[in-house]
């Protein structure tokens, strides 16, 4: 499927309705939304550009990968995202403000309300000093920010599902945004959207913000709170190597053609649209590069010590997982 993104080389020329329709159509095509979906996203993008949604971006136990990924957004491009699509009131990696002035800016926005809170990173509920801000556990500021937001987007698998900080054996009791909100009695229903991915794909974040601006809270998986339009289908279902799977033609070594399942591919457990939009402007993606999928959008991503990404170990020692767990079967 053609995947090269239309390059947005014009940074800030005023966008016409046709530009929004084009960008919206592209995003909608990626998410299989069809014609109506294209119009919705175009409207959403246009509203975002006109209204400039206020955004507060906070990081807890994060690697900043979702922020770097966000800077890789291509339609709209990085500059439009930062200056036109949203009013990025505070972002720890990008904001000119620092120190007390930064805290005041955040507090001012929380008091103002009417902002989207983008959360990146897990939250160290079991060890509050594992994330400090101005000497105090950041949990308290996060609590206030969550309470006053009009919408919360958990960007990336750490925020959505606790990710690697929340893996088995972690010392900080890291939890996801949802768990923290429920613990603090902050309403979750229709207020929280999970956009997993390690990192979060920039298009996932942009499309979610655009959809919310146009139509409000999207249709989500009721357990996972992930938008169906992005996370509804598995990588396995839409994999370009699916025909190899059907013929039981498996790659035995890295770099070979064939289905990557025997090398460890977790496509069957991975619900996201990588086969369609691919990565970094459509230049490549994991399976196209011969790299088995590691199910980075899964709520169980990296969780278990005994559930290795790759299956080479099976050649040498007994494993405690069953193959059907890797297929996503019930038995």
């Amino acid at each position: 499927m053609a995947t090269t993104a239309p390059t947005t080389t014009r940074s800030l020329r005023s966008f016409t309705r046709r530009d929004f329709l084009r960008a919206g159509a592209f995003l909608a095509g990626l998410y299989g939304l069809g014609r109506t979906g294209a119009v919705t996203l175009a409207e959403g993008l246009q509203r975002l550009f006109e209204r400039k949604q206020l955004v507060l971006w906070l990081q807890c136990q994060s690697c900043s990968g979702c922020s770097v990924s966000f800077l890789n957004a291509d339609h709209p491009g990085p500059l439009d995202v930062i200056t036109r699509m949203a009013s990025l009131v505070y972002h720890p990696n990008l904001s000119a403000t620092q120190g007390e002035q930064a805290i005041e800016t955040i507090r001012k926005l929380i008091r103002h309300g009417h902002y989207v809170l983008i959360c990146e990173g897990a939250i160290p509920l079991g060890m509050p000093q594992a994330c400090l801000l101005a000497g105090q556990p950041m949990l308290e500021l996060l609590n206030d920010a969550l309470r006053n937001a009009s919408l919360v987007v958990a960007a990336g698998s750490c925020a959505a599902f606790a990710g690697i900080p929340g893996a088995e054996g972690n010392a900080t009791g890291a939890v996801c945004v949802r768990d923290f909100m429920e613990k603090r009695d902050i309403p979750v229903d229709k207020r929280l959207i999970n956009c997993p991915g390690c990192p979060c794909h920039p298009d996932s974040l942009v499309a979610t913000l655009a959809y919310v601006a146009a139509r409000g809270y999207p249709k989500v998986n009721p357990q996972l709170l992930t938008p169906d339009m992005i996370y509804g289908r598995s990588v396995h279902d839409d994999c370009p190597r699916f025909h190899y799977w059907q013929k039981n033609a498996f790659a035995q070594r890295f770099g070979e053609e064939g289905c990557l399942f025997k090398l460890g591919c977790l496509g069957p457990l991975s619900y996201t649209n990588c086969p369609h939009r691919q990565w970094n402007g459509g230049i490549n993606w994991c399976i196209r590069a011969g790299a088995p999928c590691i199910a980075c959008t899964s709520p169980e991503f990296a969780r278990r010590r005994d559930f290795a990404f790759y299956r080479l170990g099976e050649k040498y020692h007994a494993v405690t997982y069953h193959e059907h767990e890797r297929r996503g079967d019930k038995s």
Partner: protein
Amino acid sequence: MSRTVEISPLTRIEGHLAVHLETEPDESSGFRVKAARCEGEMYRGFEQILRHRDPLDAQQITQRICGVCPIPHAIASVRAQEMAYGIRQNHNGRLLQNLILAANYLHSHILHFYHLAALDFVDVTAVLNYQGSDRTLKALKNWAAEAVARSDPFAAAPLLPRYDGDYVKDADRNQRLVAHYAEALEIRRICDEMAAIFGARVPHSTAIVPGGVTQVPTAERVLSYAGRLKRVLDFIEAVYLPDLLEVATEFPQYFEIGRGCGNFLSFGVFEQDAGDSKFIGAGAVINRKWEAVDQAAIAEDVAASRYAPGPAQHPSRGQTQPQPARPGAYSWLKAPRYRGQPMEVGPLARVMVNYLNPSATWLRREVDAFLAPLNLPVEKLISVLGRHVARGLEALWIARQAGKWLDQIELDAPATCDFELPKSASGFGLTEAPRGALGHWLTIENYRIEHYQCVVPTTWNCSPRDSQGKPGPVEAALEGLVLRDPSQPIEAGRVVRSFDPCLACAVH
């Protein structure tokens, strides 16, 4: 009359850092820093999370130490595994790993100068007076002016608010730098595309494995990389380096500020061939004397760190036992020391190490050629601006060299090799991330990770005091700094950011 200054959070770095300064009044009517503390404020605990996992998980898990520089972690991890498995990358594997890493350096350095550091120097408000016809600048002017006109409480965020300070005065220069900030966003995105051409995707490449890279290099892949590389190289030569010099012209005093500890360490990076030679060489410089690196001389001290107390340990034996409320501890970073000395790492360290290496290299010629028209002795590079200059020069050298690696690729041939998993083994991987010397130490028992320790660039640079009370490089660089207005300590931010700190890395 001393005064405490706390900058928390320090923004426009990666991760959570608070900078604590003890100051006293200075005859210039400012405040002079007597002592500084770098306080790493966030902990995750990768070294525990890795325990008892399959060793092959390591290069995936450790990339998540940092989303700005995941690739060096993947490289250090696969080098440690390659040593443990007794293998080396094949011809294509070595080249593709170099190319993915090179692209990561270029994105990182461009991001750092423009999007992390530049706002300490550039007066973005100059765009409000722009009268010319450049579309980007006109649009930015309208954006800012409209927000100001409607009294937007968050006008021009994230470029405002900001500290008051002595920003660039020249209006044309400011406007050029603002336009380049915008262009640099696109250029760094292109660098990430380059990394993904062979690395599958970034951040967090799935294609890097022990022995090489899963992507088979085709002519189409190589041409995609080459075309983007050309654009990025043009930007570095025509925009980035000239902008560096423009900033240096307005702030020459920053060649005298932020010297730091004066010791430098590099593990070398970019394997050139099947032998041990690296494009950017390894070495240690202590008291201006060069010596070959002995990794056994590395130890991590925890005297001021939020971990269980104990003697400084080599990372092959060190433990990570968090004690968040330990009395006297002020940072989540350990204090790495080399032969008991704090060591600066990063682009400046790589330049100084290779410049002072008695076997003269291409690097010394390049640095001399760059400094000559500026009438600047190499000694002046040990400074805030020197770090920025070293970073820019390094981006240029790596971008040029990457073209040569592309030419050496064997098209359509695999970039991986076979290996066996040992039941028990150990290994370590030493490389250089954009921010400096990076090492991963691995022990395998019963086919599982028994022990895994990382010593990461910013751990060296933003290190707290050790058991001898010696400050870390950034803490030392802040000593003696004069703040014009301690309530808006813009000078301190300039010093700290010159090291390009990454705190998620530093703590891991």
